[in-house]
């Protein structure tokens, strides 16, 4: 195996094993948010997968977005994404951030994160079960193994 290939493989292995996530709520009902917070608790314990929930965009690799992106919250979303250092991924958690779900068509809602940011993974659900979020993040890890 060539050395550069080995280095890249190791780099991707390290990357997928310690994803630091940032959670941003763009106007959701809180259902998906409390299921994301549930991942920190003993029953689901996402830290055993190397995933830590951080508070600062500068520390984060993955942006977990919930909510249908209200007009008022969209500026904050853009700024947070801009502050995250590359490589970075965006995961739309919940039906609201995927398509706008039940709020689609409202005058004050954009409807879906992909109207603002490039999304790497969609996890539909209303709200998403914690097992669903874990499955989604594991799929993201798989993607990273194969170079996005």
């Amino acid at each position, binding site marked *: 195996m060539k050395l550069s290939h080995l280095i890249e493989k190791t780099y991707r292995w390290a990357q997928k094993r310690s994803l630091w996530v940032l959670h941003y*709520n763009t106007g959701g*009902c*809180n259902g998906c948010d409390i299921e994301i917070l549930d991942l920190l608790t003993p029953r689901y314990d996402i830290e055993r997968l190397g995933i830590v929930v951080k508070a600062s965009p500068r520390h984060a690799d993955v942006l977990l977005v919930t909510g249908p992106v209200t007009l008022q919250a969209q500026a*904050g979303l853009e700024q947070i994404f801009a502050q995250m250092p590359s490589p970075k991924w965006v995961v739309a958690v919940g039906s609201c951030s995927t398509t706008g779900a039940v709020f689609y068509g*409202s*005058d004050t809602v954009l409807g879906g994160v992909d109207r603002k940011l490039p999304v790497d993974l969609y996890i539909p659900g*209303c709200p998403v079960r914690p097992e669903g979020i874990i499955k989604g993040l594991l799929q993201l890890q798989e993607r990273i193994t194969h170079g996005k």
Partner: protein
Amino acid sequence: MNKISIPIGPHHPLLKEPLSMNIEITGEKVLGGSLRLGYVHRGIEKMATQRTYVQDVHLIERICGICSHIHTTTFCNAVETLLGIEVPPRGLYIRALMCELERVHSHLLWLGILAKHVGLDTVFMHAWHDRELVLDIMEGISGGRVSHAANQIGGVRFDISDKQAEMINVNLVKLKQQVSGVLDVIENEPALQARTQGVAPVSAELIKDYCVVGPVARASGVDVDMRRDDPWSPYDKLDVKVITRPEGDAWARTLIRVLETRESLRLCKILVEDMPDGPVSVWASRKVPEGEVVTRSEAPRGEVVYYVRSDGSDKPARLKVRTPTLPVLSLLPVQLSAIHVADIPVVLAGIDLCVACADR
């Protein structure tokens, strides 16, 4: 010393939801603050008039994920009054059971967040771990952990079998045992008392001026609880103990919710034991006759008011929702004056924010 303005939000580790605050401080003292809501405004009231009543039940459940059931309950109560139909007693008992379970889950959630803000991370883990038992019960009977779709116009969507009732009883006993541990710690923990006693006291006059409701009002001695004062069946048969404290500080607001959790667990047990037999729902017509109605309920955070006006079609002509967090938020700038910077998380946690409810 100079006055400095600290912006908090819309994205901030202290906040689960987007909310923008500008807090003015000088040195370590907080002088006051101002709020900007609207980050979670989805235009639900307007959307409700463009959808049918049946579709609105699904929409209204998503005003807030934490207190979803009480919103649909109050809405269904309003529409059933306009339709002139009566939900069978068993259906009402199941509705009330889900309401009380939701209250327990909401208070345990609040407890975890408070503990996290104050620095007691272990309590956060224990409280949310115990909360999983409540979610298990709710999932066992309705199929959903957070959003249950329990209500439909005319009653509830599912019945509780004997096996499920046994499961609920077993889990309630387990929950009571586990939760007692955490609640005893909170009631007797000197570090928490030192952190919260005397912080941001609110007088009963201020509560009345700002029309505050819920545990925040009861923590300042205002004796009002919609379960006792504007009850829908079966609350009129249950002897709901309304807990008030006179101090009005952050400690009182903490203690009230702890005691309310215990009271709700007691009510859950009674609701399961005394549940009458019979059907759980009645047929309801899609078109609602002309009329207007106001209904009130006690959500985990306080009084929820719904005004529904019907024009005889299958879509409401007007839906107005007032959630309990809105008046509490109007009191926040007053609470923020005359505290220290280190007390800001304690004050924010004590009011149990639910911005999704406030913004709709």
